[in-house]
């Protein structure tokens, strides 16, 4: 029973999980910014929290590369198959995405803070969770909006590339170019002559 449920997880469900992992670190940064203001950088890189700058940088770098790769796939699909003119596939409901991202981010944030507290030997300050909720929410909202837009286009692009890949290979052929229109030299000259030389020079108002 559990196995069938697990098998039923579509890869699409993994995107929010990945986004939640990244969003959690972004929310974490916001928490420190809100709590410590200008000193945030120094505080979050000290003590048991020393790992955080490295983790955040790596996470954002990986996320950035994934987004660029995703955009590359979308671009490749457009170059290869042209802009898709069919009906856009249904977007995942944004409220459900926000709910999933926020819950995941908050849970990860709480876990991260709990582990840090355990490592430092100090009890977890409950106020941190309030900050967590306040800061993970805007990140989840932005993330859900972006993910909803990105997922739709990315899936469409993957589908398009899949269709193109399934077509038989017909080899390379030169790009289609239409014949250039012949230059109407005589017509152009007649136009110039009809305007006369008077039309040359400064505009009438300054003459």
């Amino acid at each position, binding site marked *: *029973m*559990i196995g*069938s*449920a697990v098998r*039923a997880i579509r890869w699409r469900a993994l995107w929010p999980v990945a986004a939640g992992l990244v969003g959690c670190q972004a929310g974490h940064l916001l928490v420190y910014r*809100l*709590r410590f203001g200008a000193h945030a950088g120094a505080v979050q890189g000290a003590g048991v929290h020393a790992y955080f700058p490295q983790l955040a940088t790596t996470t954002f770098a990986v996320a950035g590369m994934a987004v660029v790769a995703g955009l590359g796939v979308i671009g490749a699909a457009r170059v290869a198959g042209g802009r898709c003119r069919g009906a856009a596939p249904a977007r995942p409901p944004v*409220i*459900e995405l*926000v*709910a*999933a991202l*926020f*819950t*995941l981010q*908050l849970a990860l944030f709480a876990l991260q803070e709990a582990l840090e507290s355990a490592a430092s030997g100090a009890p977890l*300050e*409950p*106020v941190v*969770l*309030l*900050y967590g*909720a*306040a800061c993970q*929410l805007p990140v*989840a909202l932005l993330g859900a909006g972006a993910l909803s837009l990105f997922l739709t286009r990315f899936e469409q692009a993957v589908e398009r590339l899949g269709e193109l890949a399934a077509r038989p290979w017909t080899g390379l052929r030169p790009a289609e170019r239409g014949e250039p229109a012949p230059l109407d030299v005589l017509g152009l000259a007649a136009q110039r002559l009809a305007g006369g030389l008077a039309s040359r020079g400064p505009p009438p108002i300054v003459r």
Partner: protein
Amino acid sequence: MSAIHVHAPLLHGFGVRYDLPISLALYLYAAAGVVVVSFVMVALFAGDRVGDRAISYPRREVGWLTRIARTPCPRAIGGIVGVLGLLAIVATGLLGSQAPTRNPAEYLTWIYFWAALVILSGLVGNLWTLVNPWAALYDISLGRRRARPPRSLPEGLGIWPAAVAYFLFAAFELASGVSNRPWLVATLAVVYTVVTLAGMAIYGRDEWLTHAEGFTVLFVLVSRFGPVEAERDAGGSIVRVYLRPWGVGLLNPVRTGWDTVTFVILTLSTLAFDGLIATPAWQQFQGDLLVLLAPLGALAQPVVRVIGMLLLSVTFLLVFTAFTRMVIFFGSRRVDQMETITAFALTLVPIALVYNAAHNYSYLVVQSQGLIPLLADPFAKGWHLLPTQTYVPSFALAGASMVWYMQIVLIVLGHVVAVYLAHLRAGERFQTAQRALLSQYPMLLLMVMYTMTSLWILAQPITREG
């Protein structure tokens, strides 16, 4: 209510804090354990109830209640009580003492109406439908020549206006910092009366009450928990009155939509916020934000609290939605998502009720007695209308340890009932015992977390680890 205790030391005050004989964490784990065990028991003894059988329940018609309910007496008596209560709030609020502990308006509004009537309606049935003063005033003034309302509320508006009204009322109580001013309570009661009567006149009595009047929507919701069920005809008249087990009314169909889900969540989140603002964590959070919002001056604190209330409500809503989505996923059956989310939201109502009772326990058993001496001199004019002036409130039921254990029992009980109802709902939605059981693991996790969080919040002002 928190604002009241600035001037009224009795409210939310417990005197000496209770030294816990064991660590608070152990209490929290034990409470969570009880919820888990109850889940196992429900799965064992009610796990085979699936389909429509899961949400059907026994009920028995009560002849004498039907006969009484079909007479105009209950509504007339209730209406008189309600209108007198409203008049008392307005009159004493405007003309009585402006010290909150010396003014009946504060007791009537915050303890007898807001705390006691909600709990009583959950325990008995919809008493608000009898005592609603605005409905009574409307019926007296326009009831006999009730014409077709000139306008109707837009389709799809749902109960959003009621949710907004409820949130504003909660914000006035918890965030404004001025809910302890009797004249303001009285003035707002007058304003709300005018708005409600105008709304009923323009949009129709029942239309307004069931969509825009926050208290009516609240009482209809909580009374689903109660054991009294009235069957009405097409015209709204009571045909029969039944008795049913507590809680099962929440399995009956309800209007589907985010408005209903949000309203249910607001009943939980505003109560939780009321508890949260008494914790040191909130004080620290609020203090930090007040520094940031210092330019707002006196408005900074209400703004921070409204933000906090909104934040908590959104957090509750999103976490509940995420968990219900997991419930649907593990249920492995195609169901209407909105209908399912709404149906599961109703299973949270018992938690709201018990949290209300636990949170307001000391109000109900101690502070409520403060009204008795005031009956002798409600306007603080030196009158002796009744021989109650020297009455001293009894603290017999409100020692800190008593309060703490009562809160544990109530909170755990509410969550156990919620687990049971959610399991029945899962049986109805997902049709097989296996799927229903599997779907309920996320809900169990949510209930365990919520039980522990609720108890932690409630413990902060009254206990100290021994």
